[in-house]
């Protein structure tokens, strides 16, 4: 029964990976699990992207060309769900798995078996979610926010499978978050103080608190949906004294922290890459930590700014508007610090830096359009238009996804011991950054002109911008083939690198071998090493 | 008034429970002591609350689910 090994002796590389498929199923290794997460997220990104191509193809011209409106709604719904729960969140958990133990001088995650489970739930949950496409009545078609009563009274049978998939994804996220908290707070090198931790670790720690606070609420709200649909409860049914508006309140109590779950780790990544390529220590390390914590706190008390049009007392609207404006302050602190880090730095522009710089610029655009949407009276005009679509794609695609790609390129040499093809990566960057703006920037104009979101057909005056947007969309979609090639080519044929391929890079992970060993740190790093590698040392 | 007091006691119980959790988290002899003391406080408060609710109900200060919302002007 006791299959466990004894403790690892000092400085000895203990058992390597097993062989074959069983390695991946049984693994308790943070690097294996991190890779599994990343590949799963990438597969889901491609599937979700394919759905988006379907959406843009239908919107290429006014009129109905390719599909039934119901199927269009299924595409928008599943695109959102897959991207949020299948691509962005698992990708960040994967990065956290790979990087956090290396960054805090630990051998592995704190609860490795649970770590395995939090990954291995995902393929099953994803499978259940995708299988709804093949069910009678089709996949869920009520938008990724699944507002009642669309998702209760008027939804297809497959909604029950969707609910269980959300439950499973929630389990996975909660277990992942618990693991990261335990790792950061308990496995950290004894000599490393909290304020020595790199910002990616800090942002993930705070994100974990958001996950543990928000995901159970999501589980609660889908459970209420489930009983409303199947057991005759009346949570969201005014006939029985319930209220569909209550659904929105509970959903957005989860939903707003959720958007910060998807962006805080990106802030952390950015705070690593900019100092490296500006060759300066990060400006304002502690203010970054406090800003992250304030954003996380505020994220719990602003949820109803998604509901200005749903209706609420005027005092409520005012409160939620001002609280929302408040988030701009810590976010502004962050952007200021990134720019100040670059100020008079000796900057170079390798691919990870290009992605990060465009992240700062484009995310700020998304942040400002968010401020516009947060103004209650203005939101009456923008609500549920393409302006909203443009806003959240700027923060999620050119924000979260950009940071994930930047991080992948930045740490790929450490993961594989090999360097990717820099010129191809630069071509890919310019291809993606131009096409993504062609894709999403015109959607601002569409929204301001009044084109509603989630519709398969539109009136003629929107035709030109939609055409441009769709062309940009196809170009952006195609860029991912190049990204796949760059990553696979790096793993297969990349040139071997030294342990610290980026000259200005700081952090404990760069003190490990060129290709990080299977167990990161068998002995904790010394105080001198931690200080030398910390983000606030010159 | 009685309701207000009852809610205050519930919040205090939650705080005691929270301190117990922190004690458990710390571990070791001291954490264990802290956890045990907090849990003793929490169970004592809970018994007090139960007696309070029963007494308040007996005295008629609170009624089970009393709310009948006033209907506004008839049209």
């Amino acid at each position, binding site marked *: *029964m*006791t299959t*466990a090994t004894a*403790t*690892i002796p000092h400085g000895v590389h*203990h058992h390597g990976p097993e062989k074959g498929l069983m390695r991946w*199923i049984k693994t*308790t290794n943070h690097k294996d699990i991190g890779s599994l997460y990343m590949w799963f997220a990438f597969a889901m990104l491609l599937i979700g992207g394919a759905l988006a191509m379907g959406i843009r193809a239908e919107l290429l011209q006014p009129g109905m060309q390719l599909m039934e409106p119901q199927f269009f709604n299924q595409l928008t719904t599943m695109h959102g769900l897959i991207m949020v729960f299948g691509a962005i969140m698992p990708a960040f958990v994967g990065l956290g798995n790979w990087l956090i133990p290396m960054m805090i001088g630990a051998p592995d995650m704190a*609860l*490795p078996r649970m770590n395995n*489970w939090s990954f291995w739930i995902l393929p*099953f949950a994803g499978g*259940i979610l995708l299988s709804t496409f093949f069910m009678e009545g089709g996949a869920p078609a009520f938008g990724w926010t699944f507002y009642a009563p669309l998702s209760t*009274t008027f939804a297809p049978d497959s909604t*029950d499978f969707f609910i269980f998939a959300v439950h*499973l994804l929630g389990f996975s996220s*909660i277990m992942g*978050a618990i*693991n990261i908290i*335990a790792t950061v707070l*308990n496995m950290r090198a*004894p000599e490393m103080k909290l304020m020595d931790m790199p910002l990616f670790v800090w942002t993930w720690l705070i994100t974990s608190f958001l996950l*543990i606070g928000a995901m*159970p609420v999501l589980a*609660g709200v889908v*459970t*209420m949906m489930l009983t409303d*649909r*199947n*057991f*005759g*409860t*009346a*949570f969201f*049914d005014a006939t*029985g*004294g319930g*209220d569909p508006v*209550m659904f929105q309140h*509970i959903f957005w109590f989860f939903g707003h922290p959720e958007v910060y779950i998807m962006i805080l780790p990106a802030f952390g990544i950015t705070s690593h890459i900019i100092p490296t390529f500006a060759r300066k220590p990060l400006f304002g390390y502690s203010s970054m930590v406090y800003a992250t914590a304030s954003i996380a706190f505020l994220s719990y008390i602003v949820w109803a700014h998604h509901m200005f049009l749903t209706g609420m*007392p005027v005092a409520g609207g005012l409160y939620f508007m001002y609280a929302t404006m408040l988030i701009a302050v810590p976010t502004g602190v962050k952007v200021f610090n990134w720019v100040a880090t670059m100020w008079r730095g000796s900057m170079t522009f390798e691919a990870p830096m290009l992605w990060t710089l465009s992240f700062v610029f484009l995310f700020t655009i998304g942040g400002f359009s968010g401020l516009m949407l947060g103004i209650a009276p203005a939101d009456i005009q923008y609500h549920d238009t393409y302006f909203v679509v443009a806003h959240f794609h700027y923060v999620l695609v050119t924000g979260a996804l950009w940071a994930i790609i930047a991080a992948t390129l930045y740490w790929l040499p450490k993961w594989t011991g090999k360097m990717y093809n820099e010129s191809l990566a630069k071509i890919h960057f310019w291809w993606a950054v131009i096409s993504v703006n062609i894709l999403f920037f015109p959607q601002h104009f569409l929204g301001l002109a009044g084109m509603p979101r989630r519709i398969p057909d539109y009136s003629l005056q929107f035709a030109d911008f939609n055409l441009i947007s769709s062309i940009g969309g196809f170009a952006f979609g195609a860029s991912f083939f190049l990204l796949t090639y760059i990553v696979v080519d790096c793993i297969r044929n990349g040139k071997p690198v030294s342990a610290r391929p980026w000259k200005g890079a700081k952090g404990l992970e760069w003190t490990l071998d060129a290709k990080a060993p299977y*167990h990161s740190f*068998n002995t904790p790093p010394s105080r001198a090493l931690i200080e030398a590698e910390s983000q606030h040392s010159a | 008034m009685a309701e207000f007091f009852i809610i205050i006691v*519930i919040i205090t119980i939650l705080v005691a*429970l929270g301190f117990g959790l922190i004690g*458990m*988290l710390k*571990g070791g002899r001291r954490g264990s002591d802290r956890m045990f003391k907090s*849990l003793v406080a929490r*169970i004592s408060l809970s*018994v007090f*609350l139960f007696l309070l609710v029963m007494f308040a109900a007996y005295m008629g200060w609170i009624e089970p*689910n009393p*709310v*009948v*919302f006033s*209907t*506004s*002007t008839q*049209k």
Partner: protein
Amino acid sequence: MSEQKYYVPDGTYWPIIGSIGVTILFVGFANQMHGVSWGASAMVLGFAIVIFMLFGWLGQVVNESVNGIYNSQVDRSFRWGMSWFIFSEVMFFAAFFGALFYARQISVPWLSGEGNNLYTPELWDGFKATWQQIAFSTPGTTLKSGVEMSIPTQLVDTWGLPALNTALLLLSGVTLTFAHHALRAERRNQVISWLVATIVLGVAFLGFQVAEYGHAYADGLQLTSGIYGSTFYMLTGFHGFHVTIGAIMLSVILYRVQKGHFSADSHFGFEGVAWYWHFVDVVWLGLFVFVYWL
């Protein structure tokens, strides 16, 4: 320097078994609700696999712990893990309490015309917004899900079974505290008797809860009795589910105490389960006060 030796467990099959188990359980559940014949059997199978996984996995952990493979760092990781797991449970219950407060304070008053909102008597003749009695005032109504609302014939009794049950559960908290004290003083026989008392009280609570459900159902208070019935059954139901889990965990702890596990200084398994029981106890107190009384 013993702290500096890290522990990383070997590979494990339990997670994949668990994933397969919960998937079969949920897919079976969904099919059962859609009236598919094999749904129920799949549910049972999935549930059995999950139980098998839990006992296997935790059993392995207990074995490793008893054999002294873990160090104090692993112990602390477990403490962190358990604490934040419980916090996630708190947030899960918070969602349902939030629904209760929202319906109570906002949606039902709104339905009665408060705050210049919709004036409902125009929709349902003679509608009067009341809290527990919401179904009384909307007679003969069919919910949007097509289910006819069940009309309770009387209010939930607060003095009888619920008060008794509260007393039972609080008493179980007291006996558990005695067990805890005895364990810290290394008086094993007392630990065992107090634990037995706790479990018996917990099971008695569950029994009375079932009886209470029977009464309420017979009186017409059902899941389909509008928002009060919904929140009442969902909150008490999830609570009962947690009491069941807690009682099972206490039984495992009892078994381990008999086997001579735990010492006065090191008994995290006991502490975790004890805290869980106290938490479930507090949730019930909240239920008793907010669902039955205030």
